[in-house]
């Protein structure tokens, strides 16, 4: 009995605002961290090489794409060594993809929790980004080591990496605010998500450069939010050209709109989510 008593009023429909949401997330940060730590702890437990998998996973993907695109198809990689080019794209992509795919399934995966305990539900989709960011940062470090090995020098802009990851998290979380409750009601969403993400990957300049896209539609291609994320990462680590201003603006705008609407939607359904999950 430590905290001062607060009066809480429960009504059929939530009357919280986006600010209340953020305040609640902040207030339950301890729980958020504990849940994230659980995710991290169980991910590589009872695996012989444990945390090595963090680096190994993007490395293996990179190796596969390197073999496919350098040996069999032979495509340009915008002046960067192809493995470096692909790895830098994959690091961001895998981070984003995990946020969206795990986030979409997060409410369903935590059914046992949300049907038994009351806490701000909006922290649940925040657990996958928190759990994934550690993996991502390790992968970025591996990327820098590889860059140095290839004789490229790591640019000072690398200090922007955390900011980029934060932006990716915000964008991904905004999408998940929609998809996670929808998936709790219609499981079709969660089943579709990995396929959509796969298509998304090939629609974005991750394993091939944007220069392969016909000039006529390239402006449209570069508005792609994923392209913006990937270009930003390459800019920060490899000093390649930054994303287009139009793309950046669209990315920012889209993030804010999705976040605002997603927050509203989430608050709207969370009260009865337990009954429909």
């Amino acid at each position: 009995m430590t905290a001062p008593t607060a009066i809480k009023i429960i009504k059929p429909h939530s009357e919280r605002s986006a600010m209340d949401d953020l305040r609640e997330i902040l207030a339950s940060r301890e729980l958020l961290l504990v849940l994230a730590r659980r995710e991290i702890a169980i991910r590589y437990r009872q695996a012989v090489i444990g945390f090595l998998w963090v680096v190994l996973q993007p490395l293996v993907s990179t190796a596969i794409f390197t073999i496919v695109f350098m040996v069999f198809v032979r495509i340009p990689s915008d002046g960067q060594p192809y493995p470096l080019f692909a790895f830098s794209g994959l690091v961001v992509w895998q981070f984003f993809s995990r946020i969206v795919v795990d986030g979409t399934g997060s409410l369903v995966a935590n059914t046992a929790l949300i049907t038994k305990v009351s806490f701000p539900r909006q922290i649940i989709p925040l657990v996958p980004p928190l759990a994934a960011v550690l993996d991502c940062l390790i992968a970025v470090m591996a990327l820098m080591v590889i860059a140095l090995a290839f004789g490229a020098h790591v640019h000072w802009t690398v200090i922007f990496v955390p900011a980029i990851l934060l932006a990716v998290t915000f964008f991904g979380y905004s999408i998940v605010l929609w998809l996670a409750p929808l998936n709790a009601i219609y499981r079709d969403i969660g089943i579709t998500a990995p396929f959509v993400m796969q298509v998304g990957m090939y629609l974005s300049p991750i394993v091939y450069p944007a220069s392969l896209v016909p000039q006529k539609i390239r402006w449209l291609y570069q508005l792609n939010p994923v392209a913006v994320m990937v270009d930003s990462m390459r800019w920060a680590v490899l000093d390649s050209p930054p994303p287009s201003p139009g793309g950046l603006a669209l990315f920012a705008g889209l993030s804010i709109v999705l976040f605002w609407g997603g927050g509203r939607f989430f608050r709207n359904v969370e009260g009865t989510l337990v009954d429909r999950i």
Partner: protein
Amino acid sequence: MTSAIEISGVGKQYRRGMQAYTYHRASEVMTNWGKRLIGAGPREARAARADETFWALKDISLTIEQGQVVGIIGRNGSGKSTLLKIISQITAPTTGELRITGRTGTLLEVGTGFHPELSGRENVFLNGAILGMSRQEIARKFDEIVDFSGIEAFIDTPVKRYSSGMQTRLAFSVAAHLDPEILIIDEVLAVGDAEFQKKCLGKMKDVTGDGRTVVFVSHNMNTVTSLCNECILLEEGQMLASGTPDVISDLYYSSGAGRIGSRLSFNSDKERPGTDIAKLCEARLINERGHEASNFDRSEKVGVEITYEVLWAGCSLIPNFRVLMQDLCIFISSPSGGIEVAPGLYKSTMWIPSKFLNSGYYTIAVALSSPSPVVVHFYEGEALQFHVTEDITDPDRNGYTLQIPGFIRPVLNWDFEKA
């Protein structure tokens, strides 16, 4: 005294057949979708399909004062768990409003969020955080928690290597050290071995003794009576009565909520429980004259008759009965030696002797099983219910007119001599 929980006009509506909803009405889903996204319409959409909805709770209004220990009691499906979920903010009410003053802690099950891969230590911190304890608070109470659970030696072992009893003990220990102003509990006491249960009940009494508000849901009247000072009886989603546990207990077991059934029968063959070897046809309560009855005087014998169909002959069958009072099994009875008979309809009857049961409300469970290999052909937990009443002028009572405690009250022989 200020009120801790004020509930006014709270109702909860549920939809029947969730699966049918997603499949049958794909088109409707699409049209309602847009509306729902912007927040308009879920209620309208629901009202349009009123035939497919039902009220799990209807118009509940009550006030729980600070420091009160309130028991919510009712049969399965009476809405008590729904009410608890609304109070603990797990699900939102459909109508009405709640006003809660103070930090709440919810215990709807023990070990919520326990992860089998993590060690006992890690799970204590995880579970504690999920229940709303701060890291500092858990760290401070850690030794006490581990001590209470009695599994110090295994605290760094992954929980998946624990026996289920050990898991429960650890989980309950965390829960028992939860320290909110308002504690909301759902029959979590129905866990663990008898000794641990006793320990938990003791701990609960400590908790309820120090001025904390406790809301406790159970269908075990005994636990409610021993812990609570105020009681609420729910029946079919409505509040039937509130008052002291004694008053509510009587109401629960004597009239209203306590179902009386002198016969269990089935409308069609399909509904009859059983296996390919034997199926239950009917169970009845009969009196000495062979008439179906549900009210017995203590001076009467109570006959439990069970009719079953044997479909396959090569199996030894043992009919058995359980007599329960307030969810506690008082005794089990089965004939000595199995029955090995040709297929056909059979009837087994057991007679509970007169002057054996105390006056009160009893439930009978009927079952048929085979000893080797062990097969339970059917088990009907709440098959029959009956009352035993008594004449308070009965000479057995030696002039005592108040309720005599106990489940059974056999007349036993006393030796009397000059010492």
